[in-house]
């Protein structure tokens, strides 16, 4: 017979398997941050095509070209968003389904932003 045993430490055991008590907030934060990172890549890719000045500003390494700045900015935005969202949601029971829905929309926008047919339409 299945039984659930709550422990004083905030963990539970069910059918002999140990489940540590963890809020979903940090998971939601990580998922949302992933979406923000994807959107950031789409935005910097499209802006880089639309503005020569922006593209030149992202040329942080001559061998790699503007892709160096685009990818570093994306990673920095992603990590910064993750830290902020983690601090906001670390102890909250945030629904991961809502986080996934938002993240999928952001990822979709990011993919559009990196699609050549789209971003090249902004080129001079």
């Amino acid at each position, binding site marked *: 017979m299945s039984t659930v045993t709550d422990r004083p430490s905030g963990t539970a055991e*069910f*059918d*002999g*398997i*140990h*489940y*540590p008590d*963890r809020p*979903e907030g*940090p*998971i939601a934060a*990580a*998922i949302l*941050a*992933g979406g923000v*990172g*994807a959107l950031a*890549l789409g935005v910097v*890719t499209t802006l880089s095509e639309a503005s020569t000045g922006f593209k030149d500003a992202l040329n942080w*390494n001559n*061998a*790699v*070209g503007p*892709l*160096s700045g*685009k*990818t570093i900015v*994306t*990673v920095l935005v*992603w990590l910064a968003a993750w830290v902020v969202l983690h601090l906001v949601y670390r102890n909250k029971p945030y629904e*991961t*389904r809502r*986080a*996934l829905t938002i*993240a*999928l929309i952001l*990822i979709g926008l*990011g*993919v559009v932003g*990196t*699609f*050549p*047919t789209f971003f*090249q339409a902004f080129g001079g």
Partner: protein
Amino acid sequence: MHLTDREWWGLIHGMGFGAVFLLAFAGGLAGLYSLRAGLVTPEGVVERMRRLKIGVVAMAISAWGTVLTGTWVVYPWYRATGKTSPKSVLLADPATEGWHEFGMEWKEHIAWLSPILATVVAFIVLYYGTNLIRHDRVRRTAITLFVLAFGFAAVAGTLGALITKVAPVH
């Protein structure tokens, strides 16, 4: 039989990290899919969770390895200004310029979505652990992001293989 340094790096980028990525994805997906109540035992879950954690972390590391070597090691050779660089060769012929204008332009950007999402999945598995067994919604979320990470890498990898066939880095 001889490979240049550039060809070795191309192999490390595409087939070295790529092979680890594929293996880790297959193992990780199978592990996540079968991590359901009724399919795990108290004795088996410890070993299964360890294997799953290794799989998702290996996929994230290999994804980062692929994009970092691709962007910072191989890509500069691809886009070099000389007439013989792959980019110059592709753009010199209207029949092949699409491989750069569409193929490489998409590959070089979309590939970066893969390590980001793979890292998110690795975090979910490491943080939530066995809770994935009883919270099916979170497990399915992790699977969705895991498959997306693989999908973006597959797009980039396929385009990379095709571009290399048309204009290899020597």
